[in-house]
């Protein structure tokens, strides 16, 4: 299996508070990894470190054989290969739905207007938002916004998409529509790293589950192992509480 991203000895601290301690893990091409754990365990920080929205305090992030934490590495070049879907959607307020999907393609990938439009439409159809291309973000519901955000990431055709609690800001009825889209994507062989609290969903789509606790990876393994036969007491305790 080809490793897309490999993380070695990653540390992150805010001031003297250590959020991530010596994280080691890697993601293979086509793999769906779900990161679970209680609030404050460092899941989101880990995800944000992967695309450098938080600058790690130490360690290495190897992408295609290069350590992207080297000083002279072009961060923008690296980031365009990584999609990110946020908890708060973060759609560009000054663009409509189509514009949200197009602006990155036009400016970062330098695609022609026509090409960018075709690709945007393709992925907006995937998330079933092609009817709303003229709508502004403020006119959409949470679930619709998140589906557009997913289409925006897909339009960049990245190697990996990072999902940072994509359903946590949605009400229960809208969670379903977003998870359905993500479930579809997981089956297409897209590499995904998902931070989630939806255990049922994680069990279904993940090839591997990473359980984080207090800034370290406490346990990792197949969904079957983590959910049915966890080896650590802490994992069992966490699962007892959330399921």
């Amino acid at each position, binding site marked *: 299996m080809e490793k897309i991203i490999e993380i070695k000895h990653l540390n992150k601290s805010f001031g003297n508070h250590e959020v991530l301690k010596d994280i080691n893990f890697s993601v293979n091409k086509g793999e769906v990894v779900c990161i679970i754990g209680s609030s404050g365990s460092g899941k989101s920080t880990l995800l944000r470190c992967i695309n450098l929205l938080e600058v790690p305090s130490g360690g290495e992030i190897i992408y295609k054989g290069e350590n992207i934490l080297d000083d002279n590495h072009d961060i*923008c*070049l690296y*980031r365009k290969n990584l999609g*990110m879907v946020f908890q*708060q959607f*973060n759609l*560009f307020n000054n663009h409509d739905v189509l514009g949200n999907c197009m602006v990155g393609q036009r400016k970062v990938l330098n695609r022609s207007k026509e090409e960018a439009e075709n690709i945007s439409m393709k992925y907006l159809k*995937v998330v079933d938002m092609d009817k709303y291309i*003229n709508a502004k973000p403020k006119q959409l519901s949470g679930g619709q916004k998140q589906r557009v955000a997913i289409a925006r990431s897909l339009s960049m055709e990245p190697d990996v998409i990072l999902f940072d609690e994509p359903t946590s800001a949605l009400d229960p009825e809208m969670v379903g529509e977003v998870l359905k889209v993500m479930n579809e994507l997981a089956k297409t062989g897209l590499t995904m790293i998902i931070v989630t609290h939806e255990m049922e969903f994680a069990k279904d789509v993940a090839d591997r589950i990473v359980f984080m606790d207090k800034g370290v990876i406490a346990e990792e393994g197949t969904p079957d192992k983590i959910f049915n036969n966890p080896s650590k007491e802490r994992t069992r305790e966490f699962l007892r509480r959330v399921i």
Partner: protein
Amino acid sequence: MSFQSIIKIMSEYYPMLLRGAGITLLISIVGTVIGFVIGLLVGTIRTIPIPRNRIKAFILKIVNVVFSIYIEIFRGTPMIVQAMVIYYGSALAFGIDMDRIFAAILIVSINTGAYMAEIVRGGISSIDKGQFEAAQAIGMNHFQTMTNIILPQLIRNILPATGNEFVINIKDTSVLNVISVTELFFQTKSIAGNNFKYFETFFVASIFYFVMTFTVTRILRFCEMKIDGPENYTINIEDISVNKSEKLLPRVKDTSVKQY
């Protein structure tokens, strides 16, 4: 005072008053626009995150200090004093005989720029951090993030404050009469000096000022509504097919559909 004398002043001196109002508008429009551009540049540069590269970080720090000094000085002294210092100072120190209109526009521009820089800085920090993060996550650099995402939203947000500055400029250009710029106040003063009808003449001037400021605020309000766009969106119905995603993306893993 009488209504007739006001009418008389209007009909008798309207070319002078209009010329004065024209100069006032010219100075305040050009001054506000240039000040707006200065404010955007300074405000944007002041919000650049500190670069990782040491040398770049050092240069940025120096630039920021220079901008801080500029803002503090021009916000901290009255425009009437700035006008005197710049106009007579440049003549004394460098022997430059500045054109009065040019000097007026220069003073209003840099004065407005200092205020706008702070308005822009406030505007940028009020924009949701998520907007920056989403743009960065897509691979945009700072310049692309600013021009494509942040500035369009910022300009919309600071438009009311800009309108404020514009209105203030229309009124405050009157202080430029100290360097004999022939704007509306200067003209009014000359007329009143001729006919000794101070109240009536300045009453007419106040009408001129009010019409100008009121028109400007209405126009800016209209611009805001234009930028905001329509309230509703149209649904794009090209083809409606159920479960598009299944057809559009090939599946390589299992094929069951799960409902959540």
